């Protein structure tokens, strides 16, 4: 019967939780600015991703770097820094619940999508940070520079976008050894890509026994965006860019998109692409085919081919001695340019909830982190223990302790995605230094190619409501359009494409274009 007594106790306390949790509405700056009395320790709660990859002895919230932060930032400032784990895969669910109950940490980050801070700000859930940054964030301001503006909603600084150093997005890769075997040159245009793929198919230079996949494809942006964007026509006006692009990533409404899909349709019908690409939602199949030496060409997220994990190039050379996977930038648009998308120079959006009383400390923390020497340490560890400087670039040591220690350092350095060594060349060299010797030149080439003829999404600084509302559903319709159009018989292509495009426009596409057009007019004034 003891259990029931417990239940009664719970019933009695229930009223506390019943309708509570309605945190004070729109925050005002005075609240957040209430700083700690000098000398009295306060607690600053900082969100941190828990990716389930903590090595033995560490957790996402208690590790070498949390100690380091406490010692070097917390103790001198009388602040206890407490890290709150946010499960990476359910970050937005968890953050939503924490936000609504007033349990959110003082520094929250959940996504790299600008719509997230827009949504929270619109509901009055975020602390305006303008004056706090002016007062307490000189280093932060210097480090982030113009990127800060992306965190503004209607002119008010509601979030701090982490800075993305390398804005290159994708790489295209090709089997150089296959080209050499067939005596073919590196393809320099989309037309030549087609010829090359056909040659791969007919001559099967990899001796795959008919299993050759000239162009590896998956249903992911990494596979599709590089090709689709390369068809977008030259000389877009600002109006076109602003009103016809959307948060989708793909340039569905820009001139040239249909040609791109038609090209893929042709490749599919001639058996030049992965036949089951529609089922490959996470690139796993493409990777597997590449590693087994079946694929001649494919596209991927920048840098993915040469890193240790999944280790595509490495495993390919293990499986197929003599295989040589190199970057290439072959696709051309109507003006012969290698058009491709580039990331905004922003990473995760850091936010301070309106209910937070630690706005000052939050900015102080980020400002401390923005100091060059602190950032260098967070990203690379301790000189001598974890890295040595070679040509001015940190080279990570192979110590076991180092690899354990650095498991989440990239997440800890939340104000940046990647490390800035001062110039593109140096940054590329640093990226190359992280991979085995034989791939270093390829990495540098890939990074360089990723930045030629790039274009960025045209974002407004006011939220486009319709995007927030329709985008998740539209993304599926877009995938449907891509897949069904590519897999259609050549004769049916136009009808399939146009029908699905109509469906897309009717399911919210029109509403977005309309709202963007209005926003563009307002902005142009």
């Amino acid at each position: 019967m003891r259990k029931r007594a417990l239940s009664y106790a719970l019933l009695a306390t229930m009223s506390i939780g019943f309708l509570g949790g309605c945190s004070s509405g729109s925050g005002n700056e005075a609240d957040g600015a209430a700083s700690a009395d000098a000398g009295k320790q306060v607690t600053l709660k900082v969100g941190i991703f828990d990716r389930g990859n903590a090595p033995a002895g560490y957790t996402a919230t208690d590790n070498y770097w949390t100690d380091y932060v406490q010692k070097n930032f917390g103790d001198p400032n009388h602040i206890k820094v407490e890290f709150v784990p946010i499960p990476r895969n359910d970050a937005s669910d968890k953050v939503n619940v924490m936000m609504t109950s007033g349990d959110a940490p003082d520094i929250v980050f959940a996504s790299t999508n600008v719509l997230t801070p827009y949504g929270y700000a619109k509901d009055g859930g975020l602390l305006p940070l303008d004056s706090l940054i002016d007062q307490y964030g000189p280093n932060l301001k210097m480090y982030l520079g113009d990127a800060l503006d992306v965190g503004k909603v209607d002119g008010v600084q509601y979030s701090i976008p982490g800075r993305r150093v390398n804005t290159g997005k994708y790489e295209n890769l090709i089997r150089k050894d296959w080209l050499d075997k067939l005596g073919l040159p590196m393809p320099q245009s989309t037309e030549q890509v087609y010829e090359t793929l056909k040659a791969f198919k007919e001559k099967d230079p990899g001796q795959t026994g008919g299993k050759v996949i000239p162009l590896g494809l998956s249903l992911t942006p990494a596979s599709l965006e590089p090709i689709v964007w390369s068809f977008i026509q030259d000389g877009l006006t600002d109006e076109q860019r602003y009103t016809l692009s959307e948060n989708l990533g793909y340039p569905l409404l820009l001139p040239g998109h249909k040609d791109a899909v038609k090209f893929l349709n042709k490749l599919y019908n001639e058996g030049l692409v992965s036949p089951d690409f529609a089922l490959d939602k996470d690139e796993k199949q493409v990777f597997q085919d590449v590693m087994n030496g079946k694929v001649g060409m494919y596209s991927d997220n920048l840098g993915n081919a040469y890193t240790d994990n999944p280790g595509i190039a490495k495993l390919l050379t293990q499986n197929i001695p003599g295989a040589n996977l190199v970057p290439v930038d072959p696709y051309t648009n109507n003006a012969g340019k290698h058009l491709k998308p580039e990331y905004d120079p922003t990473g995760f959006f850091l936010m301070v909830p309106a209910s937070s009383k630690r706005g000052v400390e939050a900015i102080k923390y980020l400002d401390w982190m923005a100091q060059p020497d602190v950032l260098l340490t967070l990203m690379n560890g301790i000189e001598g223990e974890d890295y040595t400087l070679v040509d001015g670039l940190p080279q990570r040591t192979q110590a076991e302790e180092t690899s354990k220690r650095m498991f989440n350092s990239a997440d800890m350095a939340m104000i940046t995605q990647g490390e800035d060594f001062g110039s593109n060349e140096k940054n590329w060299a640093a990226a190359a230094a992280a991979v085995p010797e034989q791939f270093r030149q390829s990495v540098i080439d890939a990074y360089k190619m990723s930045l030629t003829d790039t274009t960025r999404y045209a974002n407004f600084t006011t939220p486009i409501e319709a995007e927030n509302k329709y985008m998740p559903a539209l993304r599926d319709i877009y995938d449907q359009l891509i897949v069904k159009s590519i897999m259609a018989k050549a004769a049916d292509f136009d009808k399939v494409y146009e029908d699905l495009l109509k469906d897309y426009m009717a399911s919210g596409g029109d509403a977005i274009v309309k709202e963007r057009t209005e926003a563009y007019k307002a902005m142009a004034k």
Partner: protein
Amino acid sequence: MKAINPKRTVSSEAGVFELINTVIIAVLVILCLAPLLHIASMSLSSNRAILSGEVTVFPLEINFEAYQKIFQDASMIRSLLLSLGLTASYTALSMLMTVFAAYPLSKRLKGGKYVMFLIVFTMFFSGGTIPDYLLIRGLHLTNHLGSLLLPTMINPFFMIILITFLRSLPSGLLEAAEIDGSSHFHTLTRIVLPLSLPALATLSLFYAVGRWNGFMDALMYITDPKLYPIQLKLYQVVMNSMTNDPLSMQGDQVVSVLPESIKAASIMFATVPILLVYPWLQKYFISGVMIGAVKE
């Protein structure tokens, strides 16, 4: 369950049936075993073989590194022990409460119908994640194992199953007990429960498996990694690197990704303990348990 067919007929018709039946079951067994063998093989294979898609149901380039890594990790072991304790106490608590609910309701008690409706209503209507969270927080149960024990204590579905079982007990025995003047408590503990062992074993298994495999509540209510149940850790390990939608992918490049073999080994590590529960409970599924109890 030999007792059900005590005399095995030796006619050829029966032999053929037995053979066909055995073959059917054997095929199904193979189909059900294959995926687990596949995962077990991955946990023992090299990363190269796994990523190249060469591993089927036999390990290739065998090594035990993945298991070494897991057993080195004290937090994995701690989570496992925590889950064991949690599952055991949850099962005991849930069974107790479920019996408390099911026994009176199986008696067609006056007013029982309303209680029943009150309960069935909650199978369909619920407040949703946010009010649930606010309640747990209001009860000061966040970051407390109580949040993993109390909110799902009685599963109405299981309770209804138990009621059905209780109602199909031979009514003569129960009535006799009541005429004897034995109290309801007495009837419950001395007659009803011993008679219901198969049902109680079944539901215990259901509760235990439900708690063992569940992690969504822990995901919401637990923020101290020291209190993570094993399945939450497993979920994170398995999902590690699987964030592949374009929104979350941006900027996620510089994180350490776990090798596939570790993921597979973690699945084995987290699944095998609960698999061992069933054979242990199997003895309660032998008919005759019941008859023995009645004759007691």
